[in-house]
């Protein structure tokens, strides 16, 4: 049962990922990426990690992708223009993808061959309580560092998106202000 579910969800995730890369329209890509995120959340549920699944839906599909879609709508992007001078990147990208896939699968194959101790804790590890206990006792320092990182990100985003002065487009030579 779980096996069938996993293969259905894995196929859905791969199809959505390919569609995310394939589509030229950024809005279609964003919706495909949401499909990937939701199927990964379901896979986390089958892996007995309900906390991570909920956080995945809340943070990724809820917060980050809403922000991305909002920016796409705000900038009113049109479709990608066809490649002009970077045409040689297509074969390089394909070759790199194949090499990366082979390398990753080899490493993971080697890892699965390694001996391991059986999971004795069973289904307890994914529960919110065990994660919270580990987070605030054993891994307190990383959690604090993550807090500082988020604070820095908030301050940085505010500084970055604030309009300092009137944008001086004439400094940018060859930009697109001629066309408007």
């Amino acid at each position, binding site marked *: 049962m*779980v*096996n069938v579910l996993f293969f259905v969800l*894995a196929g859905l*995730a*791969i199809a959505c*990922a*390919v569609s*995310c*890369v394939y589509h030229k329209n950024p809005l279609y*890509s964003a919706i495909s*990426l949401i499909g990937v*995120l939701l199927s*990964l959340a379901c*896979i*986390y549920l089958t*892996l007995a*990690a309900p906390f*991570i699944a909920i956080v995945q839906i809340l*943070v*990724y599909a809820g*917060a*980050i992708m809403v*922000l*991305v879609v909002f*920016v796409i709508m705000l*900038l009113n*992007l049109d479709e*990608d*223009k066809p*490649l002009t001078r*970077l045409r040689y*990147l297509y074969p*390089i*990208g*394909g070759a*790199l*993808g*194949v090499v990366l*896939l082979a390398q*990753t699968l080899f490493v*993971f194959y080697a890892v*699965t061959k390694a001996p391991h101790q059986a*999971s004795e804790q069973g289904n307890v*590890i*994914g529960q919110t309580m*065990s*994660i919270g206990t580990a987070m605030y006792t054993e*891994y307190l320092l990383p959690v604090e560092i*993550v807090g500082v*990182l*988020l604070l820095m990100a*908030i301050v*940085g*985003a505010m500084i*970055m998106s604030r309009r300092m002065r009137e*944008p001086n*487009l004439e400094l*940018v030579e060859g*930009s*697109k202000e001629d066309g408007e």
Partner: protein
Amino acid sequence: MEPALGSYLALSGILFSIGAVGVIYKRNAIGMFMCIELMLNSVNLSFVAFSRHYGDVTGQLFVFVVMSVAAAEAAVGLGIIITFFRNRLSVDVDDASILKN
């Protein structure tokens, strides 16, 4: 029966490769950003699979940290994209060439 660890890791590797190829193919800054998110998610999947396999909660904590980093990256990255669009009226990464000369 439950799928083996290798199945999850294979899915993770496939998603990571698709994301890496997408970063190269896309010329849109937002498209590249979304492909990076895809790569982060594939790594999260392998973390959770290992956490389940070894019965250790550390992997899920790392997933939590990766998600926080992704959220911070989204905030700062989209800020950069909006500022870039404001200056060049485009999000094409080929237009980001002021520092070249």
